């Protein structure tokens, strides 16, 4: 009975995080972007500095009509947002927040699990692009697939580098064996991982698949109302997952001063700082063209991640 209750509580906790954190990131994005551009951003909804803006947005999305194009493949069109969103919920289960089992479910091959499930989410935008029966959507879907293929590789390679360094595939295990000098040692890998993750989420400057000035909104062009909101939510949930993963793998998770009691806070602070960087990058950099985007992956990120693996291997052999 106690076990079941424990599992239930953990799952509810993960669900709450999944529902709240993406909205927090979204709201932060509104405000941070606005202030970086010399605006105020949302100020009215909810009274204090527009804190309820995203709630209001959600209500608005829910009221809109759910339109399915006549030529579209109905069922797949309606299924796509769920496929895009759910993997991130599943991934959150395996991400450790604090020491001593402060994690939804510790998995033996957690790193593998996380990367495997994250790759599934892209299927959502891919089939959304195909099922919309719209050439812009199809172009967006194709670009999504090409981008995934290019950036999955450096992401896996750098994650493998961390696994080599830690000697384990379990995420809590990786954080356990972290030392401060890991961050300079794995810094290249960390940068590559973060960049590749951004590209997989199709965040600016890697948002060629949804480039609104040329293909309207890519795979999501035909979506309205709640289903469109689900795609947006998937993007922000993806940011949360990516930042948390980078924290766990490269920044030492809960390690920090007073980490015995405040470990979970360190994880959250590091994740939030990375999320801020994600927003910052969106404001700072222009969108990469499709060929530049592929070139970056194949000629910069993959060689860098291979070099990182070599470095990790050499250091690992030297210190053992």
């Amino acid at each position, binding site marked *: 009975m106690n*076990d079941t209750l424990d*599992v239930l509580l953990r799952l509810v906790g993960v669900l709450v995080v999944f529902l709240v954190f993406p909205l927090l990131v979204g709201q932060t994005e509104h405000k941070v972007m606005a202030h970086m551009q010399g605006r105020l951003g949302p100020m009215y909804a909810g009274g204090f500095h527009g804190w309820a803006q995203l709630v209001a947005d959600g209500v608005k999305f829910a009221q809109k009509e759910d339109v399915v194009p006549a*030529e*579209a*493949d109905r069922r*797949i069109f309606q299924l796509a947002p769920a496929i895009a969103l759910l993997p991130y919920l599943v991934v959150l289960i395996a991400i450790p927040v604090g020491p001593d089992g402060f994690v939804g479910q*510790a*998995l*033996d*091959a957690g790193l*593998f*699990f996380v*990367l*495997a*499930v994250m*790759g*599934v989410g*892209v*299927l959502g935008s*891919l*089939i959304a*692009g*195909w*099922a919309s*029966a719209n050439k812009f959507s*199809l172009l967006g*879907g*194709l*670009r999504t*697939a*090409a981008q*995934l*293929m290019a950036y*999955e590789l450096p992401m896996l390679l750098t994650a493998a580098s961390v696994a080599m360094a830690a000697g384990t*595939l379990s995420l809590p295990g990786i954080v356990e064996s972290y030392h401060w000098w890991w961050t300079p040692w794995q810094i290249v890998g960390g940068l590559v991982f973060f960049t590749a993750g951004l590209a997989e989420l199709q965040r600016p400057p890697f948002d060629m698949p949804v480039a609104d000035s040329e293909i309207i909104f890519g795979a999501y062009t035909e979506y309205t109302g709640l289903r469109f909101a689900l795609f947006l939510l998937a993007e922000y949930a993806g940011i949360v997952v990516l930042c948390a993963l980078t924290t766990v793998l490269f920044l030492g998770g809960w390690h920090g001063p007073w980490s015995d009691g405040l470990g979970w806070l360190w994880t959250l602070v590091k994740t939030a700082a990375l999320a801020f960087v994600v927003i910052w990058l969106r404001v700072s950099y222009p969108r990469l063209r*499709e060929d530049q985007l592929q070139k970056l992956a194949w000629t910069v990120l993959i060689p860098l991640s291979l070099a990182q693996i070599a470095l990790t291997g050499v250091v690992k052999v030297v210190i053992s």
Partner: protein
Amino acid sequence: MNHVAAHHPGFLSPTGVEITFVLVGLATLGAALLTVTTRQLVHAALWLVVALGGLAVEYLLLTAEFIAWVQVLIYVGSVVVLLLFGLMLTKAPIGRSPDADSENRWVALGVAAAAAVTLVWVVVDAFRSTWVDLHGVVQGSSHATGESLFRHWVLPFEALSVLLLAALVGAIVLSRRDGESAGAGSTSGTGKEKS
């Protein structure tokens, strides 16, 4: 029960594992049947996702965790995306394609059915009284798999990496257009994304 097995809280009794295995197996089989019979090309790929995911669950039930996650990573994450990519580049239509099946499907059905009957009979007859013991050590934890892979299977592993490299080079050579002469003849607007 050692610490590796402790990750599996044992919600399911042994019979529970069997029942789950059979149910997931039926779902996998159904998805596989739909994959080879549906006339909508992209639906076939999506049913294939269900079938491959079901197999990953079966691996988990057989305590081969590492294989299960590799299955999800490689098959669902990459192979199916590649297949969908291919379907989109070959202009898969929405709705039914009348020419998805060839005329010899009845012959094919006969061959498959005959093979199925023979093999099922042989397999059931051979393993009538064989039981898999799923208790104790997890057979396919990443530790166990990694150890066997890098202790006993190093040479095949390295050979495989050469094969992968060859496949990579081959795919690039196949899909690039040599110069303008060959590319001029075919007017596919989709070649850009492939390269």
